[in-house]
């Protein structure tokens, strides 16, 4: 369980990234921070592994204030996946994945074996293991990034817009893959995105943020769609534009789901 207690962050130049933020992220669920740029979502994420220190308040992991823990050890115990994969260009794929294990003191041959295993878990062919990151496609690099985040089997996985830089088709693949992995692995995932559809797809708990880390609404995707807290949320999730307002029309015996603009969205099967 991750808990934010009255967190605030004012950067050295005076910008207030987060005003006053409190939230509990239940274990073994995916919490998605979603909002436009400047809403403090990445700042909040990076506070979990102390890449950013809060100016006020505390972050707790399983009831322990992480400010009391050694930064480097804390980071080694948490998986981190970032937008441009963040792979080390001078190390082969397999060594990139094994890095975290080696830093944790796992011996070389075991680190290799476990790295090969996790590459398979994320759906990468073993033949890519000896390539350099620059020799892989963007989607493959991102998979390696996920593999590196998972390799030490951390309880917590931080994902900072991990699929933001890949094309839509690859993004859908990676999202599906993450859902599958999460069903198997049951991690506590903190996921940051500006894409509300991605947030609704992946999140058990979705946190919609306004400027300065102000919470507009917290809830499951269904709760947010059913009872949006205010006009900001209604507009952010797209309820005001009509493509979320669906109704059923009978067409030649099929029951077609149509949105408010008249566009067919799918077929009702029950």
């Amino acid at each position, binding site marked *: 369980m991750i808990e934010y207690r009255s967190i605030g962050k004012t950067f050295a130049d005076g910008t207030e990234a987060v005003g006053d933020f409190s939230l509990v992220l239940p274990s073994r669920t995916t919490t998605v921070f979603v909002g436009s740029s400047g809403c403090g979502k990445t700042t909040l994420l990076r506070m979990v592994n102390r890449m950013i220190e809060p100016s006020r308040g505390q972050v707790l992991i399983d009831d322990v204030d992480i400010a009391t823990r050694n930064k480097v050890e804390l980071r*080694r115990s948490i998986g981190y996946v970032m937008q441009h994969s963040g792979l*080390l260009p001078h190390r082969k794929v397999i060594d990139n994945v094994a890095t975290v294990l080696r830093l944790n003191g796992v011996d070389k041959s075991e680190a290799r074996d476990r790295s090969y295993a996790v590459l398979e878990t994320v759906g990468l062919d073993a033949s890519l293991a000896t390539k350099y990151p*620059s020799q892989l496609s963007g989607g493959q690099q991102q998979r390696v990034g996920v593999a590196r985040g998972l390799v030490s089997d951390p309880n917590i996985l931080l994902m900072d817009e991990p699929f933001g830089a890949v094309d839509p088709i690859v993004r859908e693949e990676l999202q599906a893959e993450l859902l599958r992995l999460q069903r198997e692995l049951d991690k506590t995932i903190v996921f940051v995105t500006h894409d509300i559809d991605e947030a609704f797809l992946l999140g058990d708990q979705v946190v919609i943020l306004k400027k300065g880390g102000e919470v507009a609404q917290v809830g499951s995707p269904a709760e947010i769609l059913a009872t949006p807290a205010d006009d900001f949320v209604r507009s952010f999730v797209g309820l005001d534009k009509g493509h979320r307002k669906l109704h059923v029309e009978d067409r030649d015996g099929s029951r077609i789901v149509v949105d408010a603009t008249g566009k067919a969205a799918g077929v009702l099967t029950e």
Partner: protein
Amino acid sequence: MTWLQNNTDKVVDLLLSHLWLSALPIVLGFVIALPIGWYANRHRRIRGVLLSAAGVLYTVPSLAFFLILPSIIGTGFLSPANVVVALTIYAVAIMVRSATDAFASVSPAVLDAATATGFAAAGRAFRVELPLAGPVLVAGLRVVAVSTVSLVSVGALIGVNNLGSLFTEGYRTDNDAEILTGVIGIVILALVFDGLIVLVGRLLMPWATASRTTGTSLRGLARARR
């Protein structure tokens, strides 16, 4: 050619001493400039001062430098140490700028990722920053090597023997073959140093050439980043 055949021993001696007089400043200059460049890259304010100071040092004429040094560091006027120290200072002057650029060329995103995956400060500096600065460091070192090999010859004017002595002597005795031997010898030595540095760079950094030969995946990466 006959002159060279008759004087092989002498030329080989001069070549070896030229080799040493070049190799020492190149290696020392690199080792000294590396931490300075790393530091300058991290502290933007000091960076300007350091780079200007290095620039000024490099403008001091080498012959003047060779002559002033004994009175500063207390070596004899004919000591090869004067040449080694002066050329090390030149090497540092050139290399500090390259090293600063080299460390600046390392992607901040990669460093950030390294920190996030749990590299401690020292591990990050030596195992991520240094190797990634490698390609630009090698480029800088090549300039240092060629410049040093050619500057060593000036040492001949203050009596420190090296291939440059073949010019001074050949000029005095009007011996074109001797002058030519000196010039060609120095060029070959410079090429050998340059080739060695490139070769060692390739061996140490196979990743740098791997990314260069895969233009298509690089373009794919650029597309993915857009």
